């Protein structure tokens, strides 16, 4: 019975399969190690439930902000198949512009006015931040990426890293090395206490705003003519142009949308972290990139979901693993490495088409 299924199976265990099993075994070992650590250390500490709930709420706030930035990565990747590594800086510049608008508003006493004035001023600050990011994002596309559209795929990636450094150090040169601190208006400084759980107004506003912006983006992509054109260009640029779609215009619109979300995130992160400076977009940018990869890069719901998961892991992880909070970045980036090894296509595991691969 040379052709029995068993023999065929045995024959298939060649080098490649062996490697696959090795990687799976490694994955299982890492998972067990982490689970063991959580059970013996994190849970043994006996934190109250309210502690975990507070951590989770923080995670959602952070995750919402990451999601806005992650969407920018994923939108651009979906259409151009490149990682815009300067996207974190696009966000940072939104935060910087937001800071100066806030100073302007504070100087005019808008932040002490009636609540309607404060809300209008906050909205104005966010819009200015978004506009600044849009200007930078569109300039990036025009100057750093479009001339390299026909180049091998590694080239625009290098250009993106160069643009990232250029933007960081331009901001350093113009605005100095010291951090600019956001001063929150009285209206959003407090919070709500539910039992032992404290919900800050700022956090709640950030989360709700993030969700609203994501819904707006989802609506644009799924329900408008423009969004339909974006999806068509993402699938097949040249066929879309046969339909009368100006592909360059769609690419610009993609950068506009991604940068606007990043600008909003930059301003909200400013209020959340209370400071912005020249390099404050770098690490959050990488985190958002991690989130986009976690959800499956190019996949819009994936980016949103991946970001929320990353936010939760980052806020609950250190306590669960019994390590100092300063190590939360280690957790996030270890996660990136693990996804790239074990599930490069991300949680939403889209099959990579030949063009993307």
């Amino acid at each position, binding site marked *: 019975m040379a052709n029995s299924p068993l023999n065929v199976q045995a024959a298939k265990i060649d080098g490649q399969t062996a490697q696959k099993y090795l990687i799976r075994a490694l994955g299982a070992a890492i998972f067990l190690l982490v689970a063991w650590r959580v059970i013996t250390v994190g849970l043994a500490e006996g934190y109250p439930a309210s502690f975990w709930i507070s951590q989770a709420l923080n995670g959602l706030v952070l995750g919402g902000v990451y999601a806005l930035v992650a969407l920018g990565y994923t939108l651009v990747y979906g259409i151009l198949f490149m990682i815009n590594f300067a996207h974190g800086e696009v966000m940072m510049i939104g935060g910087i512009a937001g800071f100066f608008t806030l100073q302007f508003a504070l100087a005019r006493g808008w932040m002490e006015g009636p609540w309607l004035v404060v809300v209008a001023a906050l909205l104005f600050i966010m819009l200015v931040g978004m506009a600044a990011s849009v200007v930078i994002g569109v300039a990036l596309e025009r100057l750093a990426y479009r001339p390299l559209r026909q180049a091998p795929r590694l080239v625009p990636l290098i250009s993106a890293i160069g643009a990232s450094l250029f933007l960081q150090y331009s901001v350093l040169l113009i605005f100095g090395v010291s951090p600019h601190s956001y001063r929150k208006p009285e209206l959003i400084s407090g919070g709500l206490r539910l039992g032992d759980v404290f919900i800050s107004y700022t956090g709640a506003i950030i989360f709700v705003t993030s969700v609203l912006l994501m819904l707006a983006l989802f609506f644009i992509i799924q329900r408008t003519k423009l969004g*339909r054109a974006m*999806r068509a260009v993402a699938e097949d640029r040249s066929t879309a142009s046969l339909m009368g779609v100006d592909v360059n215009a769609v690419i610009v619109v993609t950068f506009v949308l991604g940068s606007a979300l990043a600008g909003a995130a930059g301003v909200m992160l400013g209020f959340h972290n209370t400071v912005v400076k020249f390099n404050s977009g770098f690490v959050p940018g990488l985190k958002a990139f991690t989130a986009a990869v976690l959800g499956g890069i190019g996949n819009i719901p994936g980016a949103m979901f991946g970001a929320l998961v990353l936010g939760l892991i980052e806020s609950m992880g250190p306590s669960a693993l019994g390590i100092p909070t300063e190590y939360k970045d280690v957790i996030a980036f270890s996660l990136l490495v693990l996804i790239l090894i074990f599930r490069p296509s991300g949680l939403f595991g889209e099959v990579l088409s030949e063009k993307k691969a």
Partner: protein
Amino acid sequence: MLILESVHTFYGHIHALKGISLTVNEGEVVSLIGSNGAGKTTTLNTISGVLSARAGSIYFQEPNGSLPGQASRSPDQGIRLDQLPAHEVARLGVSQSPEGRKIFARLSVQENLAMGAFARTDSTGISEDLDRVLELFPRLQERLKQPGGTLSGGEQQMLAIGRSLMSRPRILLLDEPSMGLAPLLVQQIFQIIREINAQGMTILLVEQNAQAALQVAHRGYVLETGTIVLSGKAGDLLANPQVAEAYLGI
């Protein structure tokens, strides 16, 4: 209506079209036949502006249309298409249904059809044309909400043609509409080409299935390695022994 004058197109250093000249008159079906790699698709893509001609000119007569800014016009020959990007050529009413159908797989059938009408703003006209396309291809009606990628090959071809028609083109460029389809479906597709033409549509048809393509056409051109080697009335080409030997498998 469409005039190509000694058009040369290159892929890098490869000289793919070596001076193609051809004409398509209003209301005609013109077939461009030839074997694999002869330059048929390259010709269509050069007309559409997906590829740019390095030399020669392409004119499109469009009597009542508006001119895009950078287009130049020669009074008797029409608009120079070879200077325009693809989306502007499409907006002038030159619609290509590309080789391999190129359906947007993740967009629904309805969205694919809507993409065809992308450049249009007359919503009543669009919904009229949608009705007409669905009348022509009743199979699409049942599948409007389905992703384009889930359609069978024949349905995808119908969708590709329907999508092109949704732009209400003045000329339709069809690239290998019969490719990969079962004989019965091939017949059906050619029947539809006849029908669309009878309704007044001008068609430039590229085909490897020379027999069927010449039967449906008024005139034809035979393309060999980037050069037009023969042209004439479709009936004459069908009767031509050279054509019969090389392309009709007789």
